[in-house]
């Protein structure tokens, strides 16, 4: 686990869903994500004291060479260094459990991050992270609100989204800073 404070991002880039055309169309590449992050003012404020960006991704399963090269370069937005989970943590539980164990490790790290960027519209993993971060410090009955610095990227139309970037390779994409639950 990287030393706090650190930023975190979840990339759904693994090729285990290859063959699902819709999924492949909707996902973002690394470059688009980083460009969106760099252009988001709220996120810049959240990342002010962070030097490391934890990337939740199954690096071994990323088959897109462009994405993989960007990740291996270990350079993130806001002059951060990319860090990944140690492969041994997951592998020592066996091949069957490796992906689930990896997901658990990612969940714990992303929940504790100073800022978090996911794709809640695409991945239930990201959507759960929003819930976890919203209720992490809740010990009494009250309406949950997402912790500050919880972001999601998105594509095409979405209600309540202000910052839309049309100049990126993926088309009309946006970054949303959660102030309430989606």
């Amino acid at each position, binding site marked *: 686990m990287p030393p706090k404070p650190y930023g975190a991002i979840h990339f759904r880039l693994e090729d285990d*869903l290859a063959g699902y055309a819709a999924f492949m169309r909707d996902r973002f590449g690394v470059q688009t994500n980083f460009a969106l992050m760099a252009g988001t003012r709220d996120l810049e404020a959240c990342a002010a004291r962070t030097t490391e960006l934890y990337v939740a991704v199954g690096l071994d399963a990323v088959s897109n060479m462009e994405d993989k090269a960007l990740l291996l370069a270990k350079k993130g937005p806001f002059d951060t260094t990319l860090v990944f989970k140690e492969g041994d*943590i997951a592998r020592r539980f066996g091949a*069957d*459990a490796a992906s689930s164990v990896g997901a658990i490790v990612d969940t714990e790290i992303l929940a504790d991050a100073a800022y978090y960027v996911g794709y809640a519209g695409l991945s*239930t993993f990201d959507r759960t992270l929003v*819930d976890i971060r919203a209720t992490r410090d809740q010990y009494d009955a009250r*309406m*949950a609100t997402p912790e500050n610095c919880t972001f999601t990227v998105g594509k095409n139309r979405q209600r309540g989204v202000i910052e839309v970037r049309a100049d990126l390779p993926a088309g009309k994409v946006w970054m949303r800073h959660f102030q309430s*639950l989606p």
Partner: protein
Amino acid sequence: MRALVIALVVATSAGFPKHYDASRPDAAPNPFDAPRPGDGPAAAAGNPVVYGAGAAAARTHAERVALRRRAWKENRTRTHDARAQTHAESSTCYAKNYPDLFYHFCRKGCNVDGLHTHFPNHGRKEGRQFGCVIITAAEKARWAAQAARLEALDSRSHHTHGGAILGIGGGPRNHMLGGPGAGLNNAKDGFFALCQRGRNISYPTLMWNARVPNTPPFPSIPHETLWDVDHWNAYVAKHGGLPYLVADKPTSIVGTPRFANRLWLNMFRGPMQNPHGSLKVAHFHRALRPHPLIL
């Protein structure tokens, strides 16, 4: 008016006795009290009905009726007990004849009703015989092999319990690969759904599907491999509102509910829209801590 009432009372008490009283000197003899062949000596005074060995002492109609009623009750009880004993004996014999039934129904005392129900529902069709009959050694050996199979299966798996869910996520191949049931968080959502419904998860019930299954059978992971069950139970004991988990090692998916991506709409999202639901989600995530070996 007062005089009329007094006259009526006097007339009633004097001329219309309320019931037959044999002690009255003017009472007519009861024709049913006539002695019958086989009657013994008269009952002692103050103890008009003699039971048991003195049954023959009944002399009056009331005595005979009381004796017959008593005998009928005793016979009824005796018959009922005998029938119940037969029922239990036959069921036990049925189990003893068939080792697989004995293994299934008689490990902690025989489930007599279960055995009795088994025969009409299954046993007859399977060619079994109910009751204390003698079956051939070959037939017994055949069912012994079935018992061995059951025992081997149990050593690798666990018994199903009412209300228990065995396996979350997984399912058909298209569901595993990006379909509605795929992914660790869908499994987690499904687990939360059980908590919301107040399911009694008295036995280990959860398995988490692996992400990248290539060929069936799909790999699955017992929940206690991934999550700290002791922490979960300690947290539940302290905060309540969630079911307990018990460590076990399930190895096969018995029933696979289909949990879709829309789960969070019904499970997490719904509760998150009210204060108490939000608190429950918070408790759920705090109780679900990774296994110590993971972190």
